[in-house]
């Protein structure tokens, strides 16, 4: 069987089952019952056992019901590239903003995102305007902290 003909729901169920099993195993490290009542392991153990039960039913249902396969989960063409570029730019923001600061990272990120649909020099100008506006609104107006570089911007 081609691995891409596997249903998305089946794949999600398998991943969730693995995570829930790990959660259940970890829950055994916490006391189930203490002197006067339930301990910190009580709720996690019940929750993960019930979840595993329901996941088994879901796994069985995922074979019977119609649903998207892995092959047709992700959009093809322009839409798919849009999504991937957005994820990449988000990861870029996550990794660079503490070093480069918000303003530079935001301009890079927005130029990438705007640049998908408009000319790069227009995208750059627009990114700069949006970044500075955001910086002003959040940092000065709302006094919400923003990630900054060693120069403070």
């Amino acid at each position: 069987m081609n691995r891409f003909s596997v249903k998305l729901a089946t794949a999600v169920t398998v991943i969730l089952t693995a995570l829930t099993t790990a959660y259940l195993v970890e829950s055994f490290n916490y006391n189930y019952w203490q002197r006067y009542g339930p301990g910190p392991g009580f709720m996690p153990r019940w929750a993960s056992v019930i979840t595993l039960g329901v996941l088994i039913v879901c796994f069985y249902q995922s074979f019977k019901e119609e649903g998207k396969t892995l092959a047709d989960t992700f959009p093809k063409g322009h839409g798919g590239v849009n999504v991937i570029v957005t994820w990449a730019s988000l990861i870029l923001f996550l990794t660079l903003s503490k070093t480069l600061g918000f303003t530079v990272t935001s301009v890079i990120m927005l130029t990438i995102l705007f640049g998908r649909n408009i000319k790069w020099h227009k995208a750059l100008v627009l990114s700069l305007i949006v970044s500075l506006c955001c910086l002003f609104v959040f940092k000065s107006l709302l006094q919400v902290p923003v990630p900054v570089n060693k120069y403070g911007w």
Partner: protein
Amino acid sequence: MDTVFHLISGLTNAMAGMNLLYCTIGVVAGMVVGVLPGLGPTAGTALLLPVTFGMSATEAIIMLSGIYYGAMYGGTITSVLINAPGEAASVITCLDGYPMAKQGRAGAALGVAAIGSFIGGIISLIGLLIIGPLVAEQALKFGPPEYFCLMLVGLTLVVGLLGKSLVKGLIVALMGLMLSLIGTDSSMGTVRFSMGIDNLISGLDFVGIAMGAFGLSEIFESLEQDLKVTKELPKVSGLFPEKDEWPVVLRSIGRGSLLGFFIGLIPGTNSIIPTVISYAGEKKLSKHPEKFGKGAIEGVAGPETANNSYCGGALVPLFTLGIPTSPVMAVLIGAFIIHGVTPGPTLFTKHADLVWTVIASMFIGNVLLVIMNLPLAKAWAQVARIPGKILFPIIIIIALLGVYGMNNSMFDVGSMIFFGIVGYFMKKADFPMAPLLLTFILGNQLEVSLVQSMTIFRGDFALFLTRPICLVLLSIVVTTLFVSAFTGKKRKEVFGSEETEM
């Protein structure tokens, strides 16, 4: 008499400087969210939640509530003018609103929708004023076992009524519960499931999950399509119905108001349900059912009233029991908690000022919306023409800044991105995301009340059944699960199978 006194005092507070400003900002932002296709009230409130960090609890809730009911108004405009519902509850409005616009009656359709929404909103707020304190008073008599069972009822109804599959809803709900247990245990102080990561000692943050699972995942889905609106806007003139249409319109508005309010009281319902029932009812009661779908004015008046009235009804369980009945309510409850206020039976007594000011601000917000809607409908519709390629990157950067600003932590940014991507795939696999947020927000309370109950019962689960209220509530849980399992397919054929936002 107390209610009137509190309401007057609330109105005075709500009219005071900053509260009025935040109410106006909230309804304007809500209108924008409602008008824009691809963004609904849940994503809107979740994405703008961090903006409220610098505000007081009252200001924050006033603004977020404004976004909520403002979005309900906003969705109507694009439904009528360009046949593109801005949010799920306005889908039904397209059926008769757009044909009316094509007949040159866009103004009447928008006028009736605005008047209906206003009346529906006001009637449901009056309902909230009357029922809210009564329910809260009764809820104060509940002990931990009753409260645990009550939360279970709320969650079961949400899981049972939302999404395509009961099983998938249950899984997501349980995942939300398990995520809420990460961090320091509230009774013993034990750190659980932190995997050695310092940021997890205090648990995952609600805002990151809400913004990721609802805000970002929705944007990712929207980015797959071209959201550019190219349709020309029809002319908007004559904002009121014909003289002979008034009696029919007013009757539809009256029915829609009551229907929306009472459906709002039931956890797990969404604002599509009252609109669909209202539309079907209006068609059945009409002397000219053949006109429906071709521009019947009552086909706009009834559903539009019902969807706004629903908002007020949905606030009753939130304010009185602390139980969010929909994802938007979960975001609101999150805002309450972030600002140090716990919604529940004591809200009306401990935070009377806040709750009455918020309710009063909703009256003011509804008036503001009518003023903004009737003469400015066409201007609002222009907002819907902003292309997604410009809009979504701006929303993303605001979301990133907002979630970072919450704790000054890149970990929260990472968790938002993670839950955004997870939510995107989960939605594609038909796992509804609403239960995740609801159980995550209620997880701590569920655990505390269960632990307290089990301590009282000395570990014997069967003793839940010896308490009459628990017995009734658990019967509702079991019945809901059975009914949902056996009637799910048919119900989804009527109300649609997609997970809806409200």
